[in-house]
């Protein structure tokens, strides 16, 4: 992944590729990522460690890495490359972000987690800055705040436990009682990750920035970077799981605000990209709700949902294309770009948790875990958020399928139709198949997520 990203960047820098070949670059990159996914699924089943135990290959790593690779491959294939600012960086940065997720997923210690998160975040900054340097700078500042919080939290955690290794931290905490000295760094750490993930009420930083980025850039900010932050959060929370009192209240509060707030905000806005971003915030709240249960089934459900979230949140903006002219940009898209519109509709519906799509299965798995833990208040709030989200999506579907398309002669540049290529159509079809078929493949996926949660030491 890393090598491919570097090669693509070098190709762009030195312009050694004939222009006729450039259009095959996304196809080649997607093929390489798919090959990596195949290798991961084939060889990744063997449990092993690398770099003296700093990188581990366990079931959690297998699940998260496979998800990141699948997300990257589909996002690269389904993107509208005519709407991207740089084909080379546009190809390289998603690969780097996916690599960041993979590093975080395999990290055995705090340093590896931080490195993976920053790698993914840096890729998003580059993508945003390509179109809007001012927003890139803003994302850098917001990211700086998040990084400081995360670093302070990690440092305190290290100081409290005397270990940077996640397994060792869990072993140390297993014999301790919850203290304020541990609860405060967890607040800082999870707060920093929440800012990085853009989960409500910490979405005020990254979310507006994503609205000015290119389609794939927005997908990185809303999707892959959030997946990286959530992956780090899952590993940290699993490490401190013996003391749920030091993290569960934060997770409950954030989940409640995000699920209801995200759904309400999605209903309040009309433009498709902000609506998608708020829907993503609401669904991320469900992921946090799963973590608040602090037992294996809840973590497995969160992981199961996170993969569904990642694919819809990353590929959704990519499928949306430019769409800078608000609802007008997608009016009647169902008639003029049926495959792309179907992908877009499924992305919206999945993020809203509408049945029978990927997001629904993930959210209901989390809901089952919440019910088992007896947290019916949070469950009720989550369902309320989902109802609001579905109501919001009905509005977007109306525009997609029932409104008439804009007259081509009067179509503004900001509402330009996405270009149709064989690759983008195939990407949209694969995306639809994944989102619609997630439930059918639910058994192996949820089974692997469950093994992943078990690998984190949860019982």
């Amino acid at each position, binding site marked *: 992944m890393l090598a491919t990203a570097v090669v693509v960047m070098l190709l762009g820098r030195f312009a050694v590729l004939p222009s006729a070949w450039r259009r095959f670059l996304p196809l080649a990159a997607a093929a390489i990522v798919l090959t990596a996914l195949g290798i991961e699924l084939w060889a990744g089943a063997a449990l092993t460690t690398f770099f003296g135990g700093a990188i581990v290959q366990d079931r959690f790593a297998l699940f998260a890495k496979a998800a990141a690779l699948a997300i990257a491959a589909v996002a690269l294939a389904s993107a509208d490359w005519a709407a991207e600012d740089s084909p080379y960086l546009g190809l390289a940065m998603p690969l780097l972000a996916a690599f960041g997720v993979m590093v975080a997923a395999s990290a055995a210690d705090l340093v590896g987690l931080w490195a993976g998160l920053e790698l993914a975040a840096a890729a998003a900054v580059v993508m945003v800055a390509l179109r809007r340097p001012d927003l890139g700078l803003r994302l850098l500042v917001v990211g700086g705040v998040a990084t400081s919080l995360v670093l302070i939290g990690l440092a305190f955690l290290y100081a409290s436990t005397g270990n940077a290794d996640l397994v060792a931290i869990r072993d140390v905490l297993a014999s301790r009682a919850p203290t304020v000295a541990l609860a405060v760094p967890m607040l800082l750490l999870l707060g920093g990750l929440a800012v990085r993930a853009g989960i409500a009420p910490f979405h005020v930083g990254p979310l507006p920035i994503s609205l000015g980025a290119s389609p794939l850039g927005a997908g990185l900010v809303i999707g892959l970077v959030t997946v990286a932050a959530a992956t780090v959060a899952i590993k940290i929370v699993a490490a401190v799981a013996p003391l749920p009192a030091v993290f569960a209240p934060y997770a409950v509060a954030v989940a409640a605000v995000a699920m209801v707030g995200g759904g309400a905000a999605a209903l309040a806005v009309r433009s498709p990209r902000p609506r998608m971003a708020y829907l993503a915030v609401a669904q991320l709240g469900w992921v946090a709700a799963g973590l608040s249960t602090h037992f294996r089934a809840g973590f497995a459900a969160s992981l199961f949902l996170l993969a569904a979230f990642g694919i819809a949140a990353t590929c959704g903006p990519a499928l949306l294309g430019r769409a800078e002219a608000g609802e007008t940009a997608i009016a009647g898209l169902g008639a003029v770009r049926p495959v792309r519109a179907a992908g877009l509709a499924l992305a919206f519906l999945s993020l809203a948790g509408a*049945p029978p799509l990927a997001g629904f299965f993930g959210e209901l798995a989390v809901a089952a875990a919440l019910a088992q833990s007896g947290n019916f208040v949070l*469950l009720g709030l989550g369902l309320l958020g989902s109802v609001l989200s579905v109501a919001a999506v009905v509005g977007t579907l109306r525009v997609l399928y029932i409104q008439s398309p804009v007259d081509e002669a009067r179509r503004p540049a900001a509402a330009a139709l996405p270009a149709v290529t064989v690759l983008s159509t195939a990407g949209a079809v694969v995306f639809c198949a994944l989102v619609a078929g997630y439930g059918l493949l639910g058994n192996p996926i949820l089974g692997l997520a469950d093994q992943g949660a078990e690998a984190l030491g949860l019982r």
Partner: protein
Amino acid sequence: MTLLTVIGQATPSPVPAPGAGLFTSPFLLSLLIWVPAAVAVALAFIPNPRGRYDTLIKQIAFFTNLGTLFVFFIGYSQFENFLPTMQYEEKVPWLPAIGVTYHLGIDGAGLVMLMLSGLAGVAAVLASLNVRERVRAYFALLLLAQSSVNGAIASRDMFMLVLFWGASIVPIALLVIGWGGPRRISAAWRLVGYWGFGTAALAVGALALYTAAGGTSFDMDHLFKATISPRVQLGISMAMIVAAATRLPLFPLHGWAREVLAESPPGVVVIVATAASRLGAFLILRTIIGAEPVAAHLLSPLLAALAVLTVGYAGLAALRTLDIRHAGAYLAMVPGGITVMGMAAVSPLGIAGSVLGLFAGGLAAALIAGACVTLSDRAQTRSMALLGGLAPRMPNLGWLLVIAALALLGVPILATFAVNVMTFFGAFKTQPLGAFALAASLAVCAVALAVILGRVLFGAPNADAPGVSDVSLGETWYLGLLAGALLWVGLFPGGPKIPGTEVPLFDPGLINQMSAGISDIASPYVLPTPAAPATQ
């Protein structure tokens, strides 16, 4: 009691229907669910430049519905009405980690609901032949809605029930928003709000049941056999009643009904007023009456009160409104109230009446709402101040409207008569006050119907009213199909027999088929027979 004996009891011994055993399919229920969904997806991607293939798309939708109805009738004729267990079961582990199973199955009540859904599907397509805009999307959404309703009926797993229950919201909301009347946006939001709230309540109830039963399986066979404390049963049942009340609808959660049934095109009215909304009563039957007898006994007064309030409110509101579509929408709430009263009776006869009420009530609700929508279309106005003396000018629609009114009131020869007889005979024993109040509310509805029919059909014509025309062929067919089904079951509740024998001619009779499983559901509510005095 002779009449009750005839209509309330199944054929005592299994009588094989002609053709039994000729066709069996292990995927019969899956076919009914997934074929419409697959055709909907295919329709959505058929190229249709400038509406060139509109007619073909309508034909595909029609024959898909006819085909699934044919498959259903095969299942209907093969149905073993003497078995108390679920039939045509399909059971495949789906998400074992959280205990989800792809489990389908139907008993007599499910069979009745599937028959309603099948007829509604054909009637909805016939009612939609006038659709001219975005034909491809319209019929794709209609088929998706039907698929999700069939799925909710056949589900034997709570997870699947929530899935299919919720899946019907988006297609129906889009149908309303895309092809509805002037207040379609408001109607669609109300639908999403109320049905979404109901889905959330159902999910909470299902998850509470799942947790109370050990958190290992969503399978209804497991959940309904678990020993659950009465307090938890009560909480779960309240959530289920809320979910059901948003669907059926029951007062005070009926806020969507007027707008949706008045603003939707006739095809959508048929789908919504029949199986999609009867799912509410079906849910009460499955999850409260059939599964939690303690809660059912405790909550039966509440159910009776909701039934009375619904019917009374519907009658008064219909009496007060001057909009014919609103009147039809209000009156369409009446059969749901009667069905729920049958369940509130918590007696075998009342429960049997409510199961038949799922079918007959759904048809009657669709017939009255559909007739009112069609009448307003044909008369070019919704205002009853302008409508008058239409009977001579639209005789076919006049007749259909009269049949709809009679069906609502439950007059003999219509299927709703049997429903009302069983419901009232069942309810007067256990809920005398509720049954009396329901009868009084029904009298209000009768007055409302008399006033409306008197004014619209037989009143003095209004010179200022726009021109009217009688129903088209498609509209006659769809309304006729609904009315015909009501008449058929009303005339032959036990099915037509070869004269002089008990051998069914070709239809085993809906009363016979629906009774499968009812004895199982009603067994906790059978009153102990008083001991006979000892003879000296």
